[in-house]
């Protein structure tokens, strides 16, 4: 069951195409990563999803209903470039922004107090925004985004500008929000966070979607049947043992240990181990699972190359 559907979204600005027939499907209660190089069209897609701009072609659905203005109360959006009114007091401003999302004043105050305490910025309630450090301002912005407990949360580069401790805080909160029932879309260049958080992703390059799906499935897809082996007890190339059946690359480590990366072309791991065990002492044996980072880079390169042809 998908919470959000974008079908064949096309958007053109005066001299370039931002999105060309892009479709994504965001399953309910998933954490969905929207990835892509700079200028690919992610922010445009996000703006369209938030009804800030309208697509030239295509349709959007929220919970199987056509996307309408009333849905803004069910969506929380944290933009990439975000700011606050400098001269306004923090508490006042947070209440105002919460009310814009449909919360009553009383509700807003109660919830804000809770979150401010949780994030340890309670003492800043009456200060002007310009007196806060950037990190604190960002905390305030995050709180305001989630305050009205929306079904769908959209974060555009949420980790940018946060120090490692706050990045961690953010990650914990995102997971908790998902566990409490929210669906989360976020776009980022921080591939580590994608590894840790996302269960679905979509990859956009040059205004087209070039990859979409469950993270685990994608990784399986990109697996190259490669393994790393750490061993000792044999000085020389393993190739001689394996008889050139597999692709092997080897490096020596300290103390007589070696590490080898073996690509099993058509064989399987057990077979390999069977061949090696009589000759070496095995310290570790692991499958190489491609990182999202690697997948990103290779897929984009593929796509660019095919465009040139």
């Amino acid at each position, binding site marked *: 069951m998908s919470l959000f559907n974008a079908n064949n979204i096309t958007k053109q600005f005066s001299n370039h195409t931002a999105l060309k027939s892009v479709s994504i499907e965001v399953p309910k209660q998933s954490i969905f990563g929207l990835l892509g190089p700079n200028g690919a069209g992610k922010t445009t897609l996000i703006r369209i999803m938030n009804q*800030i701009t*309208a697509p030239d072609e295509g349709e959007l659905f929220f919970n199987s209903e056509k996307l309408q203005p009333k849905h803004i109360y069910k969506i929380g959006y944290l*933009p990439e470039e975000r700011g*606050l009114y400098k001269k306004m007091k923090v508490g006042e401003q947070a209440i105002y*922004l919460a009310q814009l999302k449909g919360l009553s004043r009383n509700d807003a105050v109660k919830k804000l107090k809770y979150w401010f305490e949780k994030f340890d910025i309670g003492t800043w309630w009456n200060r002007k925004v310009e007196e806060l450090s950037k990190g604190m301002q960002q905390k305030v912005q995050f709180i305001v985004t989630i305050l009205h407990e929306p079904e769908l949360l959209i974060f555009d580069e949420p980790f940018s500008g946060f120090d490692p401790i706050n990045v961690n805080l953010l990650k914990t909160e995102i997971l908790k929000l998902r566990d409490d029932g929210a669906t989360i879309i976020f776009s980022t260049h921080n591939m580590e966070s994608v590894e840790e958080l996302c269960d679905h992703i979509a990859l956009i390059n040059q205004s087209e979607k070039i990859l979409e799906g469950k993270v685990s499935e994608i990784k399986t897809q990109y697996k190259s049947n490669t393994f790393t082996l750490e061993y000792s007890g044999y000085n020389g190339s393993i190739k001689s043992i394996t008889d050139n059946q597999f692709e092997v690359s080897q490096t020596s480590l300290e103390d007589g240990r070696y590490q080898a990366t073996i690509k099993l072309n058509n064989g399987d791991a057990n077979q390999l181990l069977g061949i090696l065990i009589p000759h070496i002492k095995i310290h570790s044996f692991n499958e190489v699972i491609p990182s999202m980072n690697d997948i990103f880079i290779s897929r984009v390169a593929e796509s660019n190359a095919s465009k040139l042809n």
Partner: protein
Amino acid sequence: MTILGPLLMAAMMIVPAILATMSDTSDRKIAVLDETGIFYNKLQNDEHLQFYHIHSDLNTAKENLKTNGDYALLYIPKTEVALPTSAIIYSEKQPNLDTKSYIRRMMGKEIEEQKLLIQINKLKLDEADREIAMDIPISIKTSISLTTYKLSEGEGEQKTYTEIAMVIGIFTGILIYFFIFFFGAQVMRGVIEEKTSRIIEVIISSVKPFQLMMGKIVGIGLVGLTQLTLWIVLTASIVGVFQIAFKDKMPNQSAMVMNNTQMVQGNALAEVSNDESDLTAVFEAISSINFGIIIFAFIFFFLTGYLLYAALFAAVGSAVDSEADTQQFMLPITIPLIFAMIMAQFIIRDPEGPVAFWLSIIPLTSPIIMMIRIPFGVPYTELALSMVLLVAGFLFTTWMAGRIYRTGILMYGKKPSYKDLYKWIKYKG
């Protein structure tokens, strides 16, 4: 811009001058009913004013004025003792300043000549009489007081005070000019701040750009209105206190009016009017002004004029990234306002001419120019037309600004050209 700037500057100086000469070209005939006989054939015509003498009674003359298309009727009542130093002008429209001062000069010159003759004649007296005669001081210099009455369609006539109307007109015109500029600029600054602090990105997901723009315009407008109301209330209270404090020194208002009407019919006016104290004259003048209409008009023209210009200011703010970049767009907005202020000096001299009419109708200049005209009295049809056009004007600029705003607030970097702005207006939602 380097070429456009000087061109615009030159135009600002040349165009008003051309327009000013335009309004003066109509020939004006003035009927002179001179009961004293002194001025017969003594009033010289100038390029626009033609004097011709009539012999009838006052009421017939006034009736004729309504139908014969003359500019005015100059009535010089008979005097018993002294030389005539005052006269009354009846006209349908407010006689303009130049005409009044011309008549004053002509009459004054004649009276001064007469006085000189008297002095010279005194010298011809024999010694004994001469001494007595010379003891009676006569000042040669004469100032003529002209009272103006506006004849309306029916039976009524209303005393008018050109000078006071001028002062009030200019004053309110300047006030509107400043208010529109001041609060309009605040709107622009607010829009730019939202853009540079990026709060716009946060808010824009909750409200439509048009709502945000209108909210800002209306909010700042209300601030302006509050300030205005405060000023009006405070000024009215101070004037009220003043009036109460000086109540005893002032003759009763209604008695004053009655006296004047009687004196017009009689001859005492000629000899007595110069004795009127200045204070009473001022109060009488002020009370002749219809403050109700002025205040109502001021609030209306301020609000609608502000709405018209504030929308433009909002559009400019949304198109740029910083206040420094606003310069090139400010010029076309400020030019109509400055032009109106420059033309103001000509309008007060000729508040009923064609230039005044057109400038008080065109929405860009009407807030200022119409305010200047109102103390002189403006026909209700013209006022209504001006108001309707102004409302249409601000609806149009708001619509146009809305379309520029909703694209401009998300655009950063390149400074848009006028062509870009035009494209933004055409973008679909």
